């Protein structure tokens, strides 16, 4: 791996550990200092948080789509008829 790529990945790893709160105490302190010295670093932290927010939305959207599929299967497919009747019977 090219050294520049390696440096970049190390920085992202440090940002990620900072955001997740998983950095070792010494590392955490060092990162706090870097935040004060490097003007662009707080922005990078902000973008990283937005990245994780989008990943969260993406994951949840996929889960909701699977839940919708399962619901449709249960309430349309013939093999789930008795389940369906049991549920619909509750709402008469």
């Amino acid at each position: 791996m090219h050294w520049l790529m390696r440096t970049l990945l190390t920085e992202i790893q440090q940002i990620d550990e900072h955001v997740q709160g998983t950095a070792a105490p010494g590392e955490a302190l060092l990162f706090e200092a870097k935040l004060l010295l490097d003007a662009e670093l707080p922005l990078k932290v902000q973008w990283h948080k937005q990245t994780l927010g989008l990943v969260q939305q993406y994951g949840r959207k996929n889960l909701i789509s699977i839940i919708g599929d399962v619901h449709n299967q249960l309430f349309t497919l013939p093999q789930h008829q008795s389940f369906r009747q049991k549920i619909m019977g509750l709402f008469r």
Partner: protein
Amino acid sequence: MPVNNTHAETEKLIMRLYKSAFPLVARYVAKLGGSFDDARDVFQDALVIYYEKAAAGKLELQKTESAYLLGIAKHLWFKKFKDGRYDISLDEFEGFDLPDEAEPQPAAEKLLHYLETAGQKCMDILSAFYYDKLPMKQIAGLFGYSGERSVTVQKYKCLEKVRETIKQNALAYEDFID
């Protein structure tokens, strides 16, 4: 509940939870005068909360899956009555903490759509890490990486890629409002 990220596995899990717990939730909602659609909405939101709690390792182990889901659904149903509306945000669920960043941001939908098409593989990998919170080894297996090290490197590359997209988007947005 073991969270297991292949689409088929998740579907199997949801099917099992639906069969075991939806009758309980439906009976509860029906008894209190709710409709089938009410029961469905409350149950589906409860499933999302349950899944995310399980992924984060925050389930109380002494409860059964069905009891847990019923508990969450009752809580959501109660909120519906108290607030007089149903459009409850999952994020507000008591004891269920999501980072603020999960709140939809301006242009987030557009960005998400872009990432879903242009960077689906990366989004899938990142989602396995951060949403499903699967162990590294399992993610490596799921996505065909030789080991934990190579999948970790890929994770950071993906984070970089998505962040770069966000950055470009933010810069474009600044240009736009100037």
